[in-house]
């Protein structure tokens, strides 16, 4: 890189000038640290202030702007100078607004924040896009049902070629069997025509779509922009290069043979909702047993759903499906009658109109839990209105509204379908809400232990080490040739992984997006919409891969972890801990990065014991130097120093907002924002202790069941690593309490000052770091 020409720009506005001596800060930069260009301004973000910086850059005297002003979270658009590296030293929110004005300690804090900024500048290089060669703009869509067909159509409309693979020999999936579909247009009252045939015709007739029926994916290698997928069509293999992958493998009905207690298998006239659809499409519904018209039909809701012995979740669509079928039956034959026995009738949104229509059409709704169905079709249910067990007799047919099982693993090599058995290690859905003073019903943690026992029933974990992702039951869909195994990660309930509140398309496998019922139970209209969303994310992924840029959440980031293989010990920690499966191992067991899979969180950097993984603009030495730049007074000063490594998305903004609210806290803290706690390396801890810091606190997001880490595992990994630091501290004869990990959410602006102050008090009680001054 060219010679570094740092310039320090100090703002006097927003109370900074009142809180600290800006002249003294200029002395720190100019005299102490010999920064050649140092300027002050009354309002650096004003046009005139920005111009001051721009002029120096234009004249070539400065190529790194160190801005001592407000937090780096604000005025980002103002302080942008055509790619010149900009370092922000927070003198406003975390100094002037959170510390008493004119105090010696406030001045020291400001000076250290500036020193850290200058140290940061000395070790940062503006990353450049790494050229990676050709990328493909073709999108692979797995699954030819309503979701996959919709995805193909949407991708083509956006200008992309599509390879559409379907496991069976026909397109249309389950939707092709539906007689009618649920209403999705006003007045939301009547079953609508099933238009899937038109969609099949549109997609298969489009020259930009290569339709491959009878095809499965046997191997997926590479990364976004350049996935190499091996497609096996009736045994004949071919390799395609695609830019991104949309997984729309859909669902299958819950196995009704497990529902013997509801009469399935005891009478041929106990059928599933899916079986009834076939009958509805074929004309008047007839009993399988004797061919007589089915005039009196009972529908049993939640057959195998919302049941701890079967599927723990609600399949969302069954209520509306039964309503549709009941309506079709009563409307086809005015003498027919339909009963729907439900626990909770779930017709959210405008589907309520559909429910209303069924009530008006004479469909009878009965609230209760079915206890059994016998071979004579006698349904006994516990009627909650009457408070008694009621037999329902004289039925011609019983329909079980069975739920949806996601095809998140290969249905040909399916995992056992039995509620708790499906659980993997992510989230225990039954866990009591673990919040202060509130433990829910049975907070004994037994459920969590049960859930952690994953049945490894021969799932193809390509590596067998078992220390990466847990082995999932069932065969993989894409058979990813990744270090972390062949599966798309799935959540506790068996559905494909998704950051399902704020960023529902984000998965742990970059460039691979799931949509439709493989992600969450949903109906046809929603699946079609979901497909459009997934296609957009797929387009972004292949586009970013072409530019060498990251996707969500560090969108556009060009930096990449650079792995120095010369000192790599092949310990595999980086390949194991990467939340996104971005790092594989080569034939000699060295780590090898797949750049376009990488999300730039730095978990690999934090994992590496020999610190040979670094980013141009975020690296081990940079943060070490920032820590080293802090002036640590001797113990006689009675001024402890506490290092805070704060998650830049949540804890750091919470600290800023504490300042915005003018909450004050201990002036002895020195805050370094980190991309994710997962990127924190042990070296920073030891550097700080050697430097004489008295305490270190890591502030990150909630980990565990309800994790809030945007890199999924980063904060959890950091917590695990820090559990081991206790031993190191003991060996140095230091107290374990000197290093703490604290969960701080972005809403903790009022709470974080207390956390800081009590930690500072504790450190004072423990006493000063004995290494201070050595």
């Amino acid at each position, binding site marked *: 890189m060219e010679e570094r020409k740092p310039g320090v720009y100090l703002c006097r506005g927003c109370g900074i000038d009142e809180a600290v001596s800006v002249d003294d800060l200029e002395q720190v930069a100019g005299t102490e640290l010999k920064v050649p260009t140092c300027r002050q301004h009354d309002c650096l973000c004003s046009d005139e202030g920005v111009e001051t910086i721009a002029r120096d850059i234009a004249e070539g005297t400065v190529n790194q702007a160190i801005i001592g002003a407000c937090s780096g979270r604000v005025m*980002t658009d103002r302080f942008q100078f055509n790619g010149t590296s900009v370092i922000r030293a927070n003198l406003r929110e975390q100094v002037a607004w959170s510390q008493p004005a004119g105090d010696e300690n406030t001045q020291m804090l400001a000076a250290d924040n500036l020193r850290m900024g200058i140290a940061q500048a000395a070790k940062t290089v503006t990353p450049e896009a790494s050229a990676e060669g050709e990328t493909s703009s073709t999108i692979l869509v797995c699954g030819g049902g309503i979701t996959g067909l919709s995805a193909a159509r949407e991708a083509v409309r956006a200008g992309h070629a599509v390879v559409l693979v379907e496991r069976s020999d026909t397109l249309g999936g389950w939707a092709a069997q539906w007689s009618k579909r649920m209403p999705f247009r006003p007045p939301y009252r009547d079953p609508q025509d099933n238009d899937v045939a038109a969609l099949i015709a549109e997609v298969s007739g489009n020259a930009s779509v290569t339709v491959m029926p009878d095809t499965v994916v046997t191997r997926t290698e590479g990364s976004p922009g350049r996935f190499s997928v091996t497609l096996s069509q009736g045994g004949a293999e071919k390799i395609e290069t695609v830019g991104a992958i949309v997984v729309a493998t859909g669902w299958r009905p819950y196995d009704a043979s497990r529902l013997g207690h509801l009469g399935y298998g005891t009478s041929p006239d106990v059928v599933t909702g899916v079986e009834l659809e076939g009958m509805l499409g074929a004309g008047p519904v007839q009993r399988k047993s004797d061919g007589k018209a089915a005039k009196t039909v009972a529908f049993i809701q939640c057959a195998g759903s919302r049941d701890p012995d079967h599927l723990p979740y609600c399949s969302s669509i069954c209520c509306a499906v039964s309503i549709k079928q009941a309506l079709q039956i009563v409307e086809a034959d005015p003498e027919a009658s339909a009963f729907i026995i439900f626990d*909770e009738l779930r017709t959210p949104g405008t589907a309520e109109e559909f429910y*209303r229509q069924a009530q008006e059409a004479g469909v009878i709704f009965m609230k209760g839990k079915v206890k059994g169905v016998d071979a004579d079709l006698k349904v006994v249910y516990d009627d909650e209105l009457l408070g008694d067990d009621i037999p329902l007799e004289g039925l011609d047919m019983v329909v079980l509204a069975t739920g949806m099982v996601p095809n998140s693993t290969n249905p040909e090599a399916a995992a056992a379908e039995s509620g708790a058995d499906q659980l993997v290690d992510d989230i225990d859905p039954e866990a009591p*809400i673990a919040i202060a*003073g*509130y433990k829910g*019903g049975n907070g004994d943690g037994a459920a969590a232990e049960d859930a952690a026992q994953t049945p490894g029933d021969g799932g193809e974990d390509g590596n067998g080490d078992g220390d990466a992702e847990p082995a999932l039951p069932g065969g993989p869909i894409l058979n990813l040739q990744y270090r972390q195994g062949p599966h798309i990660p799935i959540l506790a309930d068996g559905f494909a992984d998704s950051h399902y509140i704020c960023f529902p398309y984000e998965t742990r496998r970059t460039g691979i997006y799931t949509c439709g019922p493989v992600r969450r139970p949903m109906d046809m209209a929603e699946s079609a919409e979901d497909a459009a969303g997934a296609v957009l994310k797929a387009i972004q992924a292949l586009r970013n891969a072409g530019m060498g840029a990251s996707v969500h959440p560090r969108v556009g980031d060009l930096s990449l972890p650079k792995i120095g293989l010369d000192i790599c010990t092949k310990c595999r920690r980086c390949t194991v801990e990467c939340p996104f499966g971005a790092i594989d191992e080569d034939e000699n067991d060295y780590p090898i990065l797949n750049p376009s899979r990488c999300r730039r969180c730095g978990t690999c950097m934090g994992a590496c014991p020999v610190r040979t993984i670094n980013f141009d603009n975020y690296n081990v030495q940079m943060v070490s130097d920032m820590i080293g730049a802090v002036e640590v007074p001797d113990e006689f000063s009675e001024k402890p120093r506490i290092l805070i490594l704060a998650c830049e998305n949540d804890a750091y903004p919470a600290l800023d907002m504490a300042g915005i609210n003018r909450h004050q806290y201990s002036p002895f803290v020195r805050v370094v924002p980190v991309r994710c706690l997962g990127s924190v390396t042990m070296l920073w801890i030891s550097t700080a202790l050697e430097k004489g810091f008295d305490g270190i606190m890591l502030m990150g997001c909630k980990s565990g069941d309800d994790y809030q880490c945007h890199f999924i595992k980063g904060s959890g990994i950091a917590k695990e690593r820090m559990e081991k630091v206790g031993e190191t501290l003991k060996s140095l004869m230091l107290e374990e309490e000197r290093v703490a990990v604290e969960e701080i959410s972005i809403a903790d602006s009022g709470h974080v000052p207390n956390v800081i102050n009590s930690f500072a008090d504790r450190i004072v009680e423990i006493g000063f770091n004995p290494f201070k001054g050595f």
Partner: protein
Amino acid sequence: MANTGPESQTILVVGGGIAGITAAVEVAETGYDVILLERDPSLGGRVTRFARYFPKLCHPTCGLEINYQRIKKNSQIKVITMATVAAVSGQRGNFTVTVETQPRHVNAKCTACGDCARATEMEVPNPFNYGLDRTRAAHLPHEHAFPMRYVIAPEAAANGEGEKMKAACKYGAIDLDEKPETFEIKVGAIIWATGWKPYDAAKITAYAYDLSPDIISNVEMERLAAHDGPTGGRILRPSDGEPAKRVALIQCAGSRDVNHLPYCSRICCLGSLKHAAYLREQYADAEADIYYIDIRAHDKLEAFYNRLKADPQVHFIKSKPGHIEIGDDGRPVIRGEHTLSREIYETPYDLVVLATGMEPTAAADYRPPVELIQDEYGFIVPDDGVDGGMIAAGVAGGPLDVSMSVQSATAAALKAIQAVRGV
């Protein structure tokens, strides 16, 4: 449109709530220019007023922070606050949109230093907290406001207080004479992400919302539970500031009711389950009664329902209460009949929370000035193709939760891009 290319490939997003924000960043991150209009002084819409999301009980600002950073780093997004669409003409690929802005009285020179707020004692009802408390007439909308810029209440701008604020501002950021303005922009497609407003609880006269400060709506409960709300996050009775320990949560207050909102608003059940969790988190001896018709905890949200059902101090009462009265001691008393046992009940509470539903903004206080296909409730009906160049995102198109709104908005972003590609 088949043979002529679009005049503009810029995409306009109307509404800066979670759906509009998502649509805007997803469009921009696919390489298209986008203009995001928001009527309020800052982005975030309804979700930024929620204390937490179900089912993770995590904070909306966490995801918003990422989204705001995405906006800040992306030069293809232009955000215009305090702005609405006054007129639309033209067609796909070539819309002329008249934008109307209301005066903020604070210009882009604002640094958010807060001197203007400290210069006045004048207070106004705090719109961010639904008027549950008051705020300075010059204020930052809230601590996480984006853009981070102050706003001056119009009534303050007009009187002498405005001059005090102006005198206190060191940066020349206050413009007391600012007037509403209109200007035109050219865009190729429009995403309507106009969202929802809480159904007016006062319209459900039997529930006596107007008769007691201790009968509140679910969105107000969110503010009581929010760390940056009027009580600093403590669930206190608005009447006397005492902890609310006996709380009723009434489902379908206005929803699933042909006299009010005939549809189900989808989110209220989960919202109330969340409120029960808030309450139990704060007070070990608190009890919550949830009055319901059906608990609609769809898909994996069933697990959240199970977690609350396991709590012996959260009671589920299948009943739609008949009416609410004010008891002799001033507490609200709920009267009605248990649907299952047929027993009549009459129960006093410290606090009653009405789970009011979602009314589409496009049917309430802001009707888009253009012909859209809307159903009888005002939800914008999805257009299967992209011919019209106008797409609904989020709750503008139907009652959705946050995750589904994001899904809808991401899909809308693709549809808008398809519309401006001129295919």
